[in-house]
């Protein structure tokens, strides 16, 4: 998100409220609160674990985060091997 403010500051083309650093800071705060609530909500709502571990406290959060990090890392590594210039197939 930081990239987007830099970009619009540099270009100075507009100052849409959505890309102002203050808005983005507020969005991060709201997002963090929502994230915390989804985990803390487990105190009040029981998540039924079908296979044991998926009922653990905060399992969905940790699993979602780690799964994504893993997929991005795998994609990054594969990208080293698989990425080519766009005109690779052109003669």
């Amino acid at each position, binding site marked *: *998100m930081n*990239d*987007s403010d830099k*970009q*619009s500051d540099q*270009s100075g*083309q*507009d100052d*849409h409220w*959505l*890309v102002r650093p203050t808005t983005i800071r507020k969005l991060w705060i709201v*997002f963090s609160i*929502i*994230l915390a609530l*989804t*985990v803390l*909500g*487990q105190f009040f*709502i*029981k*998540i*039924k674990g*079908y*296979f044991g571990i*998926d009922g653990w406290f*905060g*399992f*969905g*959060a*940790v*699993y*979602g*985060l780690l*799964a*994504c*990090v893993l*997929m*991005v890392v*795998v*994609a*990054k590594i*594969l*990208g080293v*091997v*698989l*990425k*080519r*210039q*766009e005109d*690779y*197939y052109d003669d």
Partner: protein
Amino acid sequence: MIEMVIPPAFLLLAGAVLIGVTRGWLRTSVLLLAPLATLWAVWQVPDGVAVTAYFLGYEIEPVEGSALRRLFATIFSIMAFVGGLFAFRQARWYELAAAYAYAAGAVGVCFAGDLITLFLYWELMAIFSTVIVWVGGTPQARAAGIRYAIMHLLGGVILKVGIEGIIVHTGSVDIQPMLATNFDTWMVLIGILINVAAPPVSAWLADAYPASSATGSVFLSAFTTKSAVLALILLFPGESVLIWIGLYMVFYGIIYALLENDARRILAYSVVNQVGFMVVAVGIGTEMALNGAAAHAFAHIIYKALLFMSAGVVLYRTGFSRCTDLGGLFRTMPFTTVCGIIGALAISSFPLTSGFTTKTLISVAAEQQGLAAVYMLLAAASAGVFLHAGIKFPWFVFFQKDSGLRPKDAPWNMAVAMGIFAFLCIFLGVYPEPLWALLPYPMEYEAYAPGKVLFYLQLLLFSGLAFFLLLPWMQRTMTISLDTDWFWRVLGRRIALALIGVVARIGQGLGQLLENARQQIAPPLLRLLDNRGALGRTWQVGTTALWIVILLTTYVLLYYL
């Protein structure tokens, strides 16, 4: 009592023909009415075989109804209508005609009661979807269209080999559940799997769909893969190899979409990813799983078309579809942005969208069968979908940097089409009962159990956190990613060129050999013939007479021996 049943596909096919011969408001009427008439006809098809005919000595069943078949035909008809609405003012008439013929093929597959009818409609789809790829008009679209046609004609041949085998060995052309146990059934399965973009040929989809026009990709995203999913449900429910094929597709789609720069190709990879969920469900094969596959196909067609529509509007307005060229479009395209976000949330199975109510059916089916690994992998994949399609697509197209582009928002017809599908994404998320009523099997299912909602919110929102934390790693590069199609686009070509080289060298060598031989052999032979050679010089009469005597004697001797 004899009831007249109109094959629904014929109405759409007639629409396709009429699009070509009409103009102006008449063509618009045909475009909008043909799918609605088809939808009406779909709901006139009763359960069981409704139409029979004789073809090449076989009794075929061109129209056979069931709840499952009507569900797929319903969404295909709706798709043709909303797609037609989206495209009719921008697309060329022959793209629209091809799209309707293509949709007619898909509707025909839905009601095919036998393998011969299935095959005929299958090929109809192959032909007219190729036309849609070609209408993209660029040299890339032409080349991709040829590769697409080869892949689908090859798939058709494999399917045909399997069908012939089944007919010869069982004497039956009926469509009935089978397992891949022998050569015939494997050929049928492989033929269908090529159309669902299964490994190792998943690459055809991301190669061809993004090469089509801004409107063409909307149609392409809907019919081929989903009619193949229906064929899998009808022919191979519970074929367990599909679970692993589906899981591969799910993660293949995520990884390649993460690497991709072109927005429409991101969406194409996520088609493979989503169809992977359905293939897993068919592999699980229980009533709950098949309900899940059918419901998810229904919801998927809507939100995937919506996503391709929003990308199509962006391409139509800006001429760009690469993330590196786009960004910041939310300022002047608020409606398209909102629709794109709704589609992205639905594909991510976010609560209150259609993806949540349908995809969780598949997870529940895995859990009911005690398939812990499958269940956990599907959960990880759901997080991955939010990562690559749910956030990445809208973020890079509509937000990220300010690209400086200030395009107008969608034209009215495109906006209405997107509005209809965006509404359906939310409607089926909040109130899925109408869709439940279409499903093939009755079920008890509480979509919004509080614990499940909380679990998915954790899963999805924290994958959102992962996206923004890893944003520096997600920056797009002006690259493409190699796929299995490298083997036929590069390696195959190199081998072919090398073989041509070898043949040319062999030919050259042979020519040289002949030339050498000629130089060795020709002069002595020619010397025989010149006027001092044994055969060329003038002989004396005595010598000639002597030779005649020798030859005649030899002849007489040989005669008596």
